């Protein structure tokens, strides 16, 4: 509390005060908050609310932990009325989240209570009747209930976001609009659970809550498993790609950095989540075929023969061959296969030009060359980020897609690049360091033609 900026303090007190006044007014005008007959329902719903509130569920939108607790408050709107909803919401104060300071608990409880009141009034204002609904009145419930949800959810989000904004002084959460819309829709969708609980109350009372919650908890478990597997997968793919690079002393960490740079560009040009993930993996895996290039070719001093160069040119296809068994987006394959095509059509393996080159490949090409230039090589030291970007710009339109180069430059201004640590010259016993880097645009591989 003490370290909060003063606008946040004022806001906090205002919210808690408003909730107190609302509850106080209800007590004074009607003499009590809920009818004694509704106490049982209130207790069950409060319990339901607490259980959900204490276990926020990671649902489809990754930035947010959604808890479906609010559907219990909405069920209370139908079953008991505004006061009941407010009381159920207020139990957020007691949620089992160790380490949550009292002031935050109070704020949570207060804002849920306010939302409960607002939703309740809207529900009753539109002709919704509070009380256990009988059989066959379901159709009359839907309209007012939907309106109540439509008030509760945005109000809840607004109150919370304002608090976060005032307390942390960051700009309004930087969430892409699409994510926000998806989030709102799924939140509204979860509101239906409250309707289910309320609608079934007449038949099986509190069991309805169990029936609704059981699939949700299973879903929560499965989402948890999914996220664990996803993290584990990311770590595994990174470790395996690094293993492929261990042989080459200078390119260690190349794959992770290309993956990062590719996703920066992709984000800058506004790719969706699914494609973003695919390009991260494509960037990571773009050079796995390099092991197929014989070490002696990479170590050869001076120009290569055409055959030797052909061995280097084969590596994107080799890479594709390896990863083809993995169910990625097709774009990821295309990105791996064509990441050495050039904008002017002089690249390999197919000699595609400009727009013929798949988008993923154009992105990876820029990221790949950039990391090569900003890393140490046996024949030169790493260049600075500025020099490397200039070099990319100089080659834009010839080797690189100007759009991607521009996007990358913008992304770099926002998120500064962390160049790899300076590589100490390898110990003398490891003499076999490749002296060619096929990714380095400033030092193209020389090829002698002829027999």
């Amino acid at each position, binding site marked *: 509390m003490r370290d909060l900026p003063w606008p946040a303090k004022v806001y906090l007190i205002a919210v808690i005060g408003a909730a107190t006044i609302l509850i106080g007014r209800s007590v004074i005008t009607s003499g009590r908050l809920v009818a004694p007959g509704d106490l049982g329902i209130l207790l069950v719903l409060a319990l339901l609310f607490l259980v959900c509130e204490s276990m926020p569920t990671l649902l489809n939108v990754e930035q947010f932990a959604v808890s479906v607790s609010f559907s219990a408050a909405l069920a209370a709107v139908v079953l008991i009325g505004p006061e009941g909803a407010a009381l159920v919401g207020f139990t957020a104060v007691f949620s089992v989240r160790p380490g949550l300071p009292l002031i935050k608990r109070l704020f949570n409880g207060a804002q849920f209570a306010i939302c409960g009141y607002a939703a309740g009034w809207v529900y009753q204002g539109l002709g919704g009747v509070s009380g256990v609904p009988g059989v066959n009145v379901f159709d009359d419930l839907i309209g007012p209930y939907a309106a109540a949800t439509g008030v509760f959810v945005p109000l809840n989000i607004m109150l919370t976001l304002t608090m976060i904004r005032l307390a942390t002084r960051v700009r309004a959460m930087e969430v892409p609009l699409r994510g926000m819309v998806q989030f709102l829709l799924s939140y509204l969708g979860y509101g239906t*659970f409250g309707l289910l609980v309320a609608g079934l109350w007449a038949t099986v009372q509190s069991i*309805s809550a169990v029936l609704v919650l059981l699939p949700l908890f299973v879903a929560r478990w499965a989402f948890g498993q999914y996220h664990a597997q996803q993290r584990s997968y990311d770590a595994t793919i990174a470790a395996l*790609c690094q293993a492929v690079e261990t042989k080459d002393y200078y390119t260690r960490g190349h794959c992770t950095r290309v993956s990062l740079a590719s996703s920066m560009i992709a984000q800058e040009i506004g790719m969706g989540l699914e494609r973003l993930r695919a390009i991260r993996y494509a960037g990571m895996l773009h050079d*796995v075929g390099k092991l197929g290039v014989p070490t002696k070719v990479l170590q050869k001093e001076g120009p290569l023969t055409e055959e030797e160069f052909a061995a280097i040119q084969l590596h994107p296809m080799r890479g594709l061959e390896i990863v083809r068994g993995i169910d990625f987006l097709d774009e990821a394959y295309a990105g791996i296969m064509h990441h050495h095509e050039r904008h002017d059509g002089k690249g390999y393996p197919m000699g595609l030009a400009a727009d013929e080159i798949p988008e993923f490949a154009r992105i990876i090409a820029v990221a790949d060359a950039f990391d090569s230039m900003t890393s140490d090589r046996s024949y030169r030291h790493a260049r600075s980020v500025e020099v490397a970007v200039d070099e990319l710009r100089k080659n834009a339109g010839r080797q690189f897609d100007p759009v991607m180069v521009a996007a990358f430059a913008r992304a770099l201004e926002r998120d500064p690049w962390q160049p790899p640590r300076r590589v100490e010259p390898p110990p003398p016993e490891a003499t076999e360091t490749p002296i060619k880097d096929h990714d380095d645009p400033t030092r193209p591989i020389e090829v002698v033609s002829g027999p």
Partner: protein
Amino acid sequence: MTRALQSLDSGQLLLICGAGLVAVAGVAHTSAVGLDRPEIAIGFGALIAVGELARLTMPGNREVAPIGAAAALGYTLLLDLSDNPLRHTALQVVAVIAVGMIAGALPHLAVGRPPRLDAMARRLLTGALLAFAFRPLADPLYQLTRQDPPTWWPALGVMVTLITLTLLIDVLIAALLRAEQVRTAFRVAVRDEINMAFPLGAAVAASGVLLALATHSMDLVALLVFAAPLLVTQVAFRKYAGIRATYLQTVRALSRVTEVGGYVEPGHSRRVSRLAVAVGRELGMAEPELLELEYAALMHDIGQLSLSDPIPGGATVLADPAQARRIAELGAEVIKQTGVLDRVAELVRRQCDQIAEDPPLSSRIIKAANAYDDLVGGSADRDRGGAALERLRLAAGTAYDPDAIEAMTRVVDRLGVHKL
């Protein structure tokens, strides 16, 4: 189609025939006597079709259709619609399930994804089983709910009991099929199937009961809304199954970099992993262990990437022991980098251990499988396989685990090397 049929074993064929007969009986009877309350049948049938359309494949190549199963469950358990009792027979339930499933499978067929007949047959039979058990009780149970005061507890109790029993039978059938299909011990298969079926089964059962009760107190309109909790579950499981599949594919794919780099013979990692998994199964290992074994077997040579020069031919059984041990250590180091596959790393690290050092069973299996493949390679020659086994048997008890060698002999005998 004939090839698809040939790949089925006798248990599956029996199951499919049974399901076919039940479905024909249901449809024939229903078309003879007519549909009772067609609009309800169509509503639930449509939901079953949607569920079939949205079926997904869980780890271990298990096909499930949770939404369809819940809808079938809901239709079976339906007692009344807004206080009008429903008297559809078990045969009608079967007909609705069968028609719904076929309708949902057609779009899959149209885009060239043939149906998994055995999985569909199991789903249909499970639904039919519950229908035949529950429908005769529907009317008495409905009368109970009409008492004063109305009570739903007996109905609920019967529903939960019958669902549990049906799920158990379903698990047993699945385990029987699996035991036959992948040659694992029945009790291991039962344990695997229960672990797999429990979470999804609970969600489906709850949603099925929810659907039935919802249709009682509200109307058919609410049918789609009430599938909402299950929809969330379905999304979650689809993502989970997706990442599990991608994970396995990725490790399988990347295990090939050693081949592309010329460190090992083409196909070595994959053959070793297949043989190792088959041996592990023969020795009664359960699925989570088998997955770790498969990962470790796929990546057992990954340490070679840290060597500057490939060992000629990559045959680690012929390399000197110190070298082999170093490859194992380096490989374990790589796998440990992931931070999550520590147990797999340990299996890889100990793949060269002598029996006296008491390595884990999976490491012993990998050691034996690796040696076998180093000697036999991709060859399908039975004599060569026999000679290799003979050679390994000489070192059984010192270098190789005798049980693993025995199990491997059985596996190789049964499947033939080429069919692994």
